């Protein structure tokens, strides 16, 4: 039975892979089937996972095991139910309460963390002595400082980009272009890696099972 299930898994994996990649030729029913199986399975998996691995252990089990110690969990439980009122237009307004709470807490937590990590620490990291270290390090540090300043200048729109300010903005564009190029390179690498993963599956897991 285990052997059959493995065999079946390999074939389903291979057929769905072919189905998805057939889109590169043109849109077709095999691609559509594979795509919709993926979407349906993902939604179903999330639904079951949320019930069995989030709601039951974190809410129902705790309340049934020791209600006195965990009675406060009723509050998030009710807020969760209120989210579902979105499905009934007449009482849909009730869902605004949990949504407001979620947005408020997320904004509050994120503001502090992003301010510290993405603003203060990043600015501090560019406040360096660029002329400290070897020649290669100095070039790198100068590029970091110049690139950061010029990049920020490009995004400052309250002054016309002309004169020395315009030169700074122009240099900023070049730095941005280099970063876009790097991002494109990484993206190409990622997509090829996914293809490699699928081909490794087809060539070394699926193919040996169909060849005599």
């Amino acid at each position: 039975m285990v052997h059959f299930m493995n065999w079946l898994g390999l074939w389903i994996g291979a057929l769905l892979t072919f189905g998805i990649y057939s889109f590169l030729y043109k849109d077709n029913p095999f691609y559509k089937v594979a795509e919709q199986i993926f979407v349906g399975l993902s939604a179903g998996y999330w639904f079951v996972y949320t019930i069995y691995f989030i709601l039951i252990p974190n809410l129902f089990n705790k309340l049934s095991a020791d209600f006195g110690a965990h009675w406060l969990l009723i509050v998030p439980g009710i807020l969760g139910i209120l989210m579902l009122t979105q499905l009934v237009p007449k009482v849909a307004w009730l869902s605004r309460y949990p949504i407001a709470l979620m947005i408020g807490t997320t904004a509050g937590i994120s503001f502090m963390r992003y301010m510290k990590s993405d603003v203060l620490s990043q600015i501090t990291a560019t406040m360096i002595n660029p002329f400290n270290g070897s020649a290669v390090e100095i070039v790198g540090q100068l590029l970091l400082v110049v690139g950061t300043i010029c990049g920020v200048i490009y995004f400052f729109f309250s002054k016309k980009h002309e004169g020395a300010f315009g030169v700074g903005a122009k240099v900023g564009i070049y730095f941005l272009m280099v970063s876009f190029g790097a991002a494109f390179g990484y993206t190409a690498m990622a997509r090829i890696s996914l293809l490699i993963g699928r081909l490794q599956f087809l060539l070394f897991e699926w193919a040996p099972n169909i060849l005599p």
Partner: protein
Amino acid sequence: MKMSPENTRRTLFTLILIGVALPLIFKLGLPIESSENVQMVYDLVNGQPEGSHILLSFDYDPASKPELHPMAYAVARNALERKYKIVCTALWPMGASLCADTFKRLKEEMPGIEDGVDYVNLGFKAGGIVTIQKMGSDIRDVYPADMSGTPIGELPIMDGIRNLTDFAFVYSFSAGAPGIKEWVMVAHDKNKVITTGGATAVSAPAILPYINEQKQLHGLLGGLKAAAEYEKLSGHIDIATSGMDAQSIAHLIIILFIAVGNIQYHLIRKRKRGE
């Protein structure tokens, strides 16, 4: 002969397919050089005393498996060889299963390692950054039991572990959010725990700025190439390295086509100017 855009596209895809498939079958053995960021991660993983506790967070799903799973094997194997105690968590639901898969394979390679003693899979917990914040104060509150249901107090590996500061370092295998960025924000920037990780190549450029003077992030494995570099450094050539020849050939084809496309574009522009 003029080719339609549709057929040009199909030709490119076919060439990429051939360019990737052939090097997978016939190995070329192209050299792999390790970069500074990978070396930093390797030095960190190999620079802790025996018995140190480390936290590996599996923050990805099967969509990113080809890139991040080889990293997970390489780093976890290296850590087990160094006799570290590995505590695994997951901020993505499927991460817990991928962690289980990693250690299932490693257990076949290293029969001596024991679940609950040398490693433990605490499983997935929803909440992202909030979950990490809570782990910063009390990990037992977030994970009262491991994935198989064993209470955390009964796991020998968890002796002396209260919160994130009890780990030598935190390592996130990250495919997006929540992931490495959230670990940097909380584990490093709030709890001052050394944080490192591996990301998909797509997300790597957004993560790289955290490797800075402030050491918000201690090195980074970006994509399959970095996983191959790590395999080379750790002396275990595995699936990441086997894909590198294919990656290089595919990149050559892409570069070639970009060059051809640009030359063609300039020739057309020149011809139009002439008219």
